[in-house]
């Protein structure tokens, strides 16, 4: 039986030109959705059905997509959760980060809260779905993977480690149907008050590498962080764990 998969897509933003585009991770979400559900995949967007960028998603080989039509200032989450509750959905795919506005980012978490579903963050692949359970590969740094099993339904945010989105073809993209559903969203007060500014690269902690040979330097650059000062807390009480995190944050000057 093919699972019922929905990929949520947003209007991305090219990091160099700032121009609207198919969002990188949302594209991967559609790609993963196509792998799981083929042409039966539902692609869902909240916003303006006339937006030309949406054609780039359907150009990946979908006959149609659904747009919950609402104003730009409206909150996407209520419309999405209402809609998703009506359908019998197994998996919802989103990106990890938003490229513009309120896309991925918080959306999977807010949705999960509303629907009462688990969130599986940073998915590299969904390997199999059997008897209502999915085997999921999570992306960890440096190409590592962790395999977990999750009960359907769930929400997964798709990491950059997932298969890249296939090429979008102009013709099918132009011809696909845009099924527009009217929704009346509430104005998202928090978002209206947002101030957007260009991102500045975060300062990186310098690693001092005392390597003499090229081989050493290569090792230092590629090796797993040794995390000498780290600590694995398994048996301690929740209060102790929280205290340890709090202390680290103070130590790192994250909170003062």
């Amino acid at each position, binding site marked *: 039986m093919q699972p019922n998969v929905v990929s949520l897509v947003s209007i991305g933003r090219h990091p160099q030109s700032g121009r609207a585009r198919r969002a990188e991770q949302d594209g991967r979400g559609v790609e993963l959705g196509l792998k799981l559900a083929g042409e039966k995949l539902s692609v869902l967007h909240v916003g303006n059905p006339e937006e030309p960028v949406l054609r780039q998603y359907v150009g990946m080989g979908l006959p149609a997509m659904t747009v919950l039509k609402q104003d730009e200032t409206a909150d996407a989450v209520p419309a999405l959760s209402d809609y998703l509750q009506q359908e019998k959905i197994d998996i919802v795919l989103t990106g990890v980060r938003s490229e513009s506005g309120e896309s991925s980012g918080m959306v999977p978490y807010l949705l999960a809260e509303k629907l009462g579903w688990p969130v599986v963050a940073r998915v590299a692949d969904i390997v199999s779905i059997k008897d209502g359970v999915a085997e999921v590969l999570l992306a960890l740094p440096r190409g590592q993977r962790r395999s977990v099993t999750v009960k359907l339904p769930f929400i997964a945010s798709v990491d950059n480690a997932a298969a890249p989105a296939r090429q979008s073809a*102009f013709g099918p993209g132009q011809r696909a149907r845009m099924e527009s559903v009217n929704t009346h969203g509430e104005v998202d007060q928090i978002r209206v008050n947002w101030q957007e500014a260009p991102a500045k690269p975060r300062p990186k902690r310098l690693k001092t590498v005392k390597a003499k040979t090229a081989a050493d330097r290569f090792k230092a650059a590629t090796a797993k962080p040794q995390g000498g000062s780290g600590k694995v807390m398994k048996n301690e009480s929740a209060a102790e764990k929280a205290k340890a995190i709090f202390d680290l944050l103070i130590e790192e000057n994250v909170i003062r």
Partner: protein
Amino acid sequence: MVIDWLPSILIVVLLALGVIGALRRISLWRAGQPEKVNLIAGLMAMPGRYLNDLHHVVERDKYMSRTHVATAGGFVLSMVLVIAVYVFHVEQKIVAWLLLGALVLMLCGAFFVFKRRLNPPSRLSKGPWMRLPKSLITFALTFIVLTLPVAGVLPEGFGGVLLTLILSVGVIIGLGELIFGMGWGGPMKHAFAGALHLAFHRRPERFGGGRSTGLKPAPLGDESHGVAKPSDFKWNQLLGFDACVQCGKCEAMCPAFAAGQPLNPKKLIQDMVVGLAGGTDAKYAGSPYPGKEVGHAKGGANNIITAGLIEADTLWSCTTCRACVEECPMMIEHVDAIVDMRRFLTMEKGDTPNKGSEVLENIIATDNPNGYAPGSRTNWAADQNLPVIKEKKQADVLFWVSDGAFDMRSQRILRSFVKLMKAANVDVAILGDEERDSGDVARRLGDDATFQSLAKRNLATLSQYSFKKIVTTDPHAYHCLRNEYADFDTEGALKGVEVLHHTTFLNQLVQAGALKLDTFKGGKVTYHDPCYLGRYNGEYEAPRDLLRSLGIEVAEMERSRFRSRCCGGGGGAPITDIPGERRIADMRMEDVTATGAELVAVGCQQCTAMLEGVVEPRPEVKDIAEILAGQLIEEVH
């Protein structure tokens, strides 16, 4: 006696069968898409096109051109007279003598065809083509013997029944090949299809010494884009494929074929013929696509071409260098066909290989193929003190910088050119960040939607300003601006504007004495003709004039000017990167080395990149602008 009538009856029957075959062939072409042609004017112009344009190409091979004139001329004349004598029974002796003359001429020609076929070069197709000279000779000899009594040389009824029977067999063999075969797909099909192809060519501008190289715009918004099935071609494109004589001149010139990539333009055209007529390529008797076996291709007028007839790799191997088109005596348009089929793969299938999809996505999102910030387009000119036309509104010369602006190697060419223009006090401006990719790569990769969008946006920008000339160092942008933008220029942004390549423009400056140049004292220099400057735009002289003005005697490569071998950089080939046995750029560098030159002058940043990509030791590679700038005598103020 019935037996005396036998040859005449045979002639009429074979003629009728030939006509039926021809009508069937015409119906095959009509499966293609409609395209307006001027029927009467085309047919009227056809003999002239054959005698001038086609023979102009064939003339490059003197042996073949004379052979063909004798054979074809002799045959056409004899056929007319054969019909007069044997069907309409014109009995004047003079006509018979004329017929004998024509037949002897044809026999001579056929003999030379025979001779060439004794040890044919690998580019020629074998199979039925090996039979052709024998059929020609049979035809000529048969009718000579048949006509001798008519001319009064031999007595009527000479040879009796036996000879008549033998001659009847000869008539069947000769006319079977020449008339029946013409209609039913034998080698002689080329004469019938070729004549009509000349009459209804899709680019009539090419005749009379003209040039027509811009791709035709793809209509957007239909149920499908590009050519998926043979019947998606225009009917006269199908007709054109049928005109192929399998001479393999295209194959011999094709850089991708020589590099062992899976492309052979002759086989491609023959596969199109298989597609339009239906069937397999089992009867094809020429060189295969390198690395692919012949006999497995299957096609039909309504079958998807890339599903069984041609592999996509074949289409993506082409550098769109036009060497095949330039060389083809039948004036077949390979590049149009290849790009038509690529359009389907890219715009309908979303299947552009390797970096293709990434590059197209970048072009769409940033107007340049590498995804750089559009706002950094003018960074290269930070120290150049170049006016931006947005502020000036007008200039004599608008310098179209092209995407070379983002590439450090190309920037050296740009700076050299600016230096020369400054020295000549040219009133120049650039578009700055308002410039966008010309759309060349997108178009050659089959994404005409993106090309058209870029063309329209660039034209909208250009239409805001006034300038007399637009000059670019990039032959690809030059080609787009000069030959392809006109289809979208509804505002007349380029009306009355001269579009020039920098070598042409610099040559004007040098001829006008605006640049003081020192004599070049380096070693031997050769010049590589970029495809998009030479074959696409016919500019062979300005670069050579410029080198001459530095006192350089160009050591020409064997393949230069219209026969120049591509550097491998055109048509998006470095992006789709189809593996072969060798690299095209390496082969071109071997051509350069063979001249003993220490420096190869080029007029294109793409050629520069490709040739400099060849491992050292190798001759140095420099754009002509760089060479000139190096020899510039700067006036001290």
